[in-house]
């Protein structure tokens, strides 16, 4: 059987190809490489070039037009003493931490629930229910939540009044003490489709035999969860956490639509400050510097996260 497979036509071609010099192999696969050139070019032009041009522009005062002159690291110095940036970073850390925890833990439990369902049909329908919100435009979600928080006619305050708790009715988005919590609760119960599918995929790859052995050994739900499911889906959980962290750090549409960073600066985040610096104040250089700092911070956090996760996997 082995002998037959190794002498099959495809294996022979593969063997011959792998032995040819590199230029010949490239020439033989020229159409594939040419086809690859198009997406690579698009990636370079629309992703890499703007990213690297941000690094370059962060060293200049640039108003988006003709005013463009070199100032070195002045923007980075300014950032150190910028009160708005400090508040924005503080807000971001709290917001990202809360959302990373929520957007990992809750999708994990949702995926656990589906994996443990005995009925394939129910499992299918639950998956549909969890994935369905993906088709609702994000902006629509924000507008709905904006209405929910409306102090005069919003659903939240009306609900509180209905159950006799009118003393807790607030202007949720206009009060500096409640605004970040209100924003963090947008899209409750935080079941982001992508993270949910990643974790579900991880749980579904755990062999059934492992769960059966654990059950024979008398492991209950919680022991199985902490000693089998979480360790065996660590990679997926890490990926979900990194993605959430990246998405939440880049997020400015939520803050723009709901509060525009107010009242005062109490819901300002760096991505929104970047947008405002560029498009409100035409300070494209400063905006680029904020972008560079965010990029470096995200890269560092991602690397740390991956290393910690890889270390845990080795253990």
């Amino acid at each position, binding site marked *: 059987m082995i002998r037959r497979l190794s002498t099959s036509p495809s294996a022979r071609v593969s063997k011959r190809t792998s032995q040819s010099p590199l230029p010949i192999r490239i020439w033989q696969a020229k159409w594939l490489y040419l086809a690859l050139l198009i997406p690579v070019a698009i990636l370079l032009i629309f992703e890499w070039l703007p990213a690297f041009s941000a690094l370059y522009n962060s060293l200049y005062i640039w108003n*988006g037009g003709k005013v463009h002159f070199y100032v070195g690291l002045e923007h980075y110095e300014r950032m150190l003493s910028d009160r708005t940036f400090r508040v924005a970073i503080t807000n971001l850390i709290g917001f990202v931490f809360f959302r990373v925890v929520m957007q990992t833990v809750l999708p994990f439990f949702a995926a656990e629930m589906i994996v443990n369902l005995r009925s394939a049909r129910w499992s299918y329908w639950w998956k549909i229910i969890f994935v369905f919100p993906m088709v609702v435009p994000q902006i629509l979600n924000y507008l709905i939540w904006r209405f929910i928080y*409306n102090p*005069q006619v919003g659903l939240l305050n009306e609900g509180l009044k209905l159950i006799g708790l009118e003393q807790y009715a607030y*202007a949720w988005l206009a009060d500096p003490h409640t605004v970040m919590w209100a924003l963090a609760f947008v899209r409750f119960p935080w079941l982001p489709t992508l993270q949910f599918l990643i974790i579900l995929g991880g749980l579904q790859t755990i062999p059934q035999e492992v769960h059966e052995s654990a059950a024979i050994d008398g492991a209950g739900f919680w022991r199985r969860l902490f000693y089998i499911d979480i360790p065996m889906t660590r990679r997926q959980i890490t990926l979900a956490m990194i993605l959430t962290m990246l998405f939440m750090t880049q997020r400015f549409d939520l803050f723009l639509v709901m509060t525009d960073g*107010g009242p*005062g600066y109490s819901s300002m985040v760096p991505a929104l400050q970047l947008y405002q610096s560029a*498009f409100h104040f035409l300070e494209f250089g400063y905006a680029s510097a904020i972008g560079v700092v965010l990029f470096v911070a995200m890269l560092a956090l991602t690397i740390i996260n991956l290393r910690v996760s890889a270390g845990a996997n080795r253990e």
Partner: protein
Amino acid sequence: MYRRIMLVALFLLVFGAFAGQAQDEITIFATVGAYYPDEPTENNPNPPAMMNEIVAEYEAANPGVNIELVDTPANISGDQWRSTVFNGQNEPHIIVNNYIRVWQEQGNDWYVPLNDYIEAPNPHIPEGTPGAERWADSIPEVVWDTTFHTGSGNQYVVTVNAVAVGFYYNIDMLEAAGIDTEFDISYSLWEDWETMIAEMGAVAEAGYEPLAMSMSTASPYTYNWFDGTSLTSMYIDHIESWWEPGASWHALNQREFACAIQNGLISANDDAFADWIQLLADFEPMWVDGYATMTWDEAYRLFITGEVPFLLGNAASQTLNVTRDADFNWGISYFPPVTETTSAHAANNESAYLVGGFTAGFTVTDRARREGIEEQVVDFLMFVTAQPQWGRVVTDSPRSIPTQFGLDVPDALKPTVAFLELPIRALKDPDPRLSRRYGEDHRRLMQEFFTEQIDLETLIAEEDRLMTREARVVIAENEWSCDFQME
């Protein structure tokens, strides 16, 4: 061989046709702001579309000239849109823009100075009508003064609209609360600022939130209107010394205000400034809950649904909406004057000040120059803004008050025209007063103060730092001298 000859001939034919077209035809792209013809809808089957007629008339009179009206996208900010189209060199030849944005973007050479054109006759204005011999004469001097960019010494904007703000009030609700709604005092429902606060307080005691307004930076905000008019009241005794020599009453330009800060003529540490903050702080409890992040639309909805008896809005466009939507008796009023009852610094105020005025106008962009069709583009602009054309546009769609001499104001806007007779406030909205950055940061600081995130002392210290920094930046950017105030 025969096929080759045929192909070459065909190519020349096609190329020649395009080349000929390129030589003979001009296409002018223009935004017209709120006057862009709406598409008919089920609720509004015959929307105003006079602009289409005006364009057709111009095209008929100028063979080879095509006019394309451009609608600016609603889903991105105007700033973002302009940055994109200008940097892509795809901007329309004519853009409706707020003059403060034009000032802000002036260093990019995006706009064509119109100084020479407005001094020339406008051939589309009938003989004997102001502007026929000199285009500038069709529009009052105060309008040109407002939009004139001191830094470059250029006029970039032709402003043919005026807007005023107004307090809309729900007569039925106020009468139920026992408030006198007779509008018998010049331009105001109230005798002075204190009376306004007292009567709004009575409304609050009757169980209503008094005033729907917006201080959100995310949408058009109405807070700025209080800000500028009340600050003017507090510095009424000093403002003349801030003007450039020989000037008469006018809204301070950037240079005058920045120099006043630099020369120490106004400071956040002044007693008048502290009085002004106190005046706004006493007024703030009358504003509807959530004003800090409320949009204009949300504030409007609260008034129309009878939740709130007062609304501060645009007295031109909003009047059309209120007329259409309100199912109660309503009136329109104005800011009261700030008098010595409120502050010793406001002792010489005889009236309230006009808020609004001449904010947006037509600009000609650099594209007209690049394509060598500047004359044609300006000619089209002269045609559209000439009284015979513009009169029809605003009658068809009365969204703002026309500024030109010799034009009748549409009936729908007549109740608000009286506001335009008030003296213009000397200190504008925070953005045009000094800079966009100042406007935004000032508004956020005031929000922090109103929501008790910072105390008065911190507010004054931060304001002082902000005003000083922005004045320095604006003066340095424009290389202005401030000696004139010290003479």
